[in-house]
Structures are given as C-alpha cells and as structure tokens.
C-alpha cells in the first residue's frame, strides 16, 4: 500500500472543480423542472382531473418503474433512432429531460401525500370564503404541503446531484466523467475519487445547511 499522492490530488482540484458548475447546472435545472412537473402531477392526481389523471398515473408508473439509466438511453439513443430529427437532443438536454421526468415521478407522489395530509378544514375554510380550486391550491394547500414535503424533496435533490454522474454515459463530461477519465490516465483511483467525493460532499453539506434555514423559516408559522 503506497502513500497517498497528495500533489496529484491538489493538482486535480482545479481541474475537477471546473466540471462542478456543469454538475450543478444539470441538477438544478432538473430540480426546478421536476418540481413544476411534480406539483402539476400531484394536483392532477389529488383533484382527479379526468384523462390527465390517467395519463399521470401511467407516466409516474413508467418513470418510477424503470431505471434512470434506461430512460437516459431511451431519450438519447432510442428516440433519434426512431425520429432522426431528435438528434438535436444533445447529451445535456437528454440528461436534464431524464432527470426531470424520473425525479418528477417520485416527487409527485411525496407532494401528493403532503397535499392529502393538509387538514381538511383548511380546504373548507378556503372554499367558504369563495376561493376557486386553483386559488386554494396556490395560496393555502401548496404552501402548507411544501413544509411537510421539504425534507423529502431535498433528499431527492441530493439524489439528483449524485445521479448526474450518469450523464457521462451520454457523452457529457461532468464531475464524475472527468474524474473517471483522469483516474484512468493516472491509475491513481483512490486519489482521484476521493477528491470527487469530497466535492460532492461539500455541495451536499451546503445544501443541508440551506435546508435547515429554509425549514426554520417555514416552521415559523407553526411554532407556539
């Protein structure tokens, strides 16, 4: 067992760091789009909007029931094979699409659970003052459900950051892809991957800190 090659690790830091923005970009765009989609799905499911509800059930079932990697391959390699115009979907877009759809399916279910968990009296009160269903959702139910769903959604975001490492399979060199390539050049696997691991870790830690702050703010209304 040789000693750690610290110089190599230090030299790798700026190189890998330059791929971190892409990783974060993939995850945050994916998260924003997935959140929008998931809220939409959750509301459709809760209000049982005809046709859309059935569509959503199938969508969620498919994207929860198949591996993310399979979905990425379908978007990136499969679709262009059927419709050659879809070659314009590049690796980054395909990754974001895959992350969005995959995670929206999971998130829709936890948002739905959070919505259903909001006390029935809140709905009645909102209806009694003459709110429409969409006002009720936007102003009363979703804000309260957000607080309940936040920890779970944050976990999905963290998961998503880590899932961006699959993008290298689609030719997108993000943090993980860069690390793999550097490691196969030097054969210093431990050094290379520990540098990458620490970077992921720091990002996730910063997010957890953010989550703590957000939770404190959202909980303000509920503390005596």
């Amino acid at each position, binding site marked *: 067992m040789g000693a750690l090659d610290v110089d190599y690790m230090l030299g790798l830091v700026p190189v890998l760091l330059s791929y971190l923005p892409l990783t974060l970009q993939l995850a945050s765009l994916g998260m924003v789009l997935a959140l929008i989609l998931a809220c939409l799905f959750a509301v459709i499911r809760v209000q049982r909007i005809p046709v859309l509800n059935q569509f959503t059930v199938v969508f969620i079932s498919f994207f929860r029931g198949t591996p993310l990697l399979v979905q990425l391959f379908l978007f990136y390699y499969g679709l262009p094979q059927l419709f050659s115009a879809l070659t314009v979907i590049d690796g980054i877009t395909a990754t974001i699409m895959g992350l969005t759809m995959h995670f929206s399916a999971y998130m829709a279910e936890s948002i739905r659970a959070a919505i259903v968990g909001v006390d029935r*009296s809140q709905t*009645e009160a909102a209806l*009694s*003052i*003459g709110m*429409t269903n969409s*006002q009720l959702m936007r102003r009363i139910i979703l804000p309260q459900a957000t607080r309940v769903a936040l920890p779970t959604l944050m976990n999905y975001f963290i998961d998503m950051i880590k899932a961006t490492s699959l993008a290298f399979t689609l030719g997108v060199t993000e943090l993980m892809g860069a690390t793999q390539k550097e490691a196969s050049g030097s054969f210093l696997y431990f050094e290379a991957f520990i540098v990458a691991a620490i970077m992921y870790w720091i990002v996730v830690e910063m997010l957890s800190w953010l989550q703590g702050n957000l939770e404190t703010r959202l909980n303000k209304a*509920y503390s005596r």
Partner: protein
Amino acid sequence: MIELKGLRKHFGDAVVLDGIDLTIEKGEIVVIIGPSGTGKSTLLRCVNFLEQPTAGEITVGDLTVDVNRATKKDILSLRQQTAFVFQNYALFANKTALQNIAERLLVVDRWPKAKAYERAREILRRIGLEDKADAYPASMSGGQQQRVGIGRAMAAGAEVILFDEPTSSLDPEWVEEVLALMKQLAAERQTMMLVTHEMSFARDVADRVIFIDDGRIVEQGPPSEIFYHPKDPRTRDFLQKILATHQA
C-alpha cells in the same frame, strides 16, 4: 334575505335534511337547536355548498340557485355572499391573523393590498386583537383563534354569517370572549344563522329559535316562546335534557 325552499340532503340512504323551508330577514339572528346528529350543521354547510344539497332551492340576497342546476359560478357567488365560522376555527395555518382576515379581500374580492390590509387592521381592532396582527394561529389561544375566525367572516360584509358551533371546541375560559364578540355583532344587526348549544346566548340574543329534529323543523318562534312555552313534546324533552346537563 336568505330563503331555503324544500332543502334536502341525503347521505346514501340516510336522509339528513328532509325538506327545510326557512326565510331569514336581513338583520335577523336565528339560532338553530336540536339533538346531535339531526342535521343542524349539515343545514348550515348546505347553504354555502360545503355539502352539496340533494334537492331544493337556495336564495341569498338577489341570487337564487336550484341546487341541482347550480353551476360552479353560482356556487362561488353563493360562497362570496356568505361567511362561515367553523367549530375548530380553521384559520389558515400558513397565514398570520392579519393575513387570515385580508385573504378574502385580496384574493376573492380583489381589493388593492393597502386597502385590504387597512380593512383587516380595522377588524382586528374591533375584535380586540390588534396586537396579534402578525401572530400565526399556532401561537394563539383557542379564544383568540375563534375571534380571528369571526373577524375573517366579518371582513367581506357578507349577507349572512353562518356559525357552526363556534364555542364547542373552546376551553371554558375562552367561551365568554367569543360570545361577547358575537353579541357585539348581533347588536350591529349582522344577519346571523347559528348552530349552538349555548342556550343562554340563544335566549338573550336570538330573534328566533328553530328546533330541528330528524331533519325537519319541528317548532320555531321567539326565544321566550320556545324556551318557556314549547308546544311540541320533542322540544320540551330536548330542553329538559340540555338544561339538566348544564345545571349538573
């Protein structure tokens, strides 16, 4: 003016409201009493479609709705002309006292922000909770929450305020302050329709008391008549029981 004609409500095979005919004049305070499970709350909840009535006709102000032909728009305007006070207060948990009262003005009546909050503050003053403007429901006592609940109902100048057992969930120490606020409203001749077990309140404040049993109006009249000279044996029976429990 509120008018209910042949209002019926079935839950499956169970008949909860069996044809209610009722007219309430502007400024009238009507208290509905009766044994539990006889459809008093359901009656209130049918007036603003928190429950979908099975048959009948509802008039609030100049809007008349056949319950089986009610459109979404009808239901919304019916709700906009009524206000509801819930047994469990049902304040919006994510909003402060001030926001709870202003919500309807902002969202439903589309008032400008400044005007809505000014009005909400005025109501907070009237219900004596000006210092709680920025407090969230979770940090308020039951009595304070229910006063905000009533304040929320006062905000829009509704044709009628429907009170569904407003003091039943309260610890005894908070009942008085809520009743006092309701008396204040009554003194201002706000049209009110109440379901309550507070017989003394009904006796002192109501213009008319309605006794309901088995989904029908059994007897109605001024409190002096209903409480002291009930005609129907069922009314007598009910009053005896309820006064006995109260003295006990």
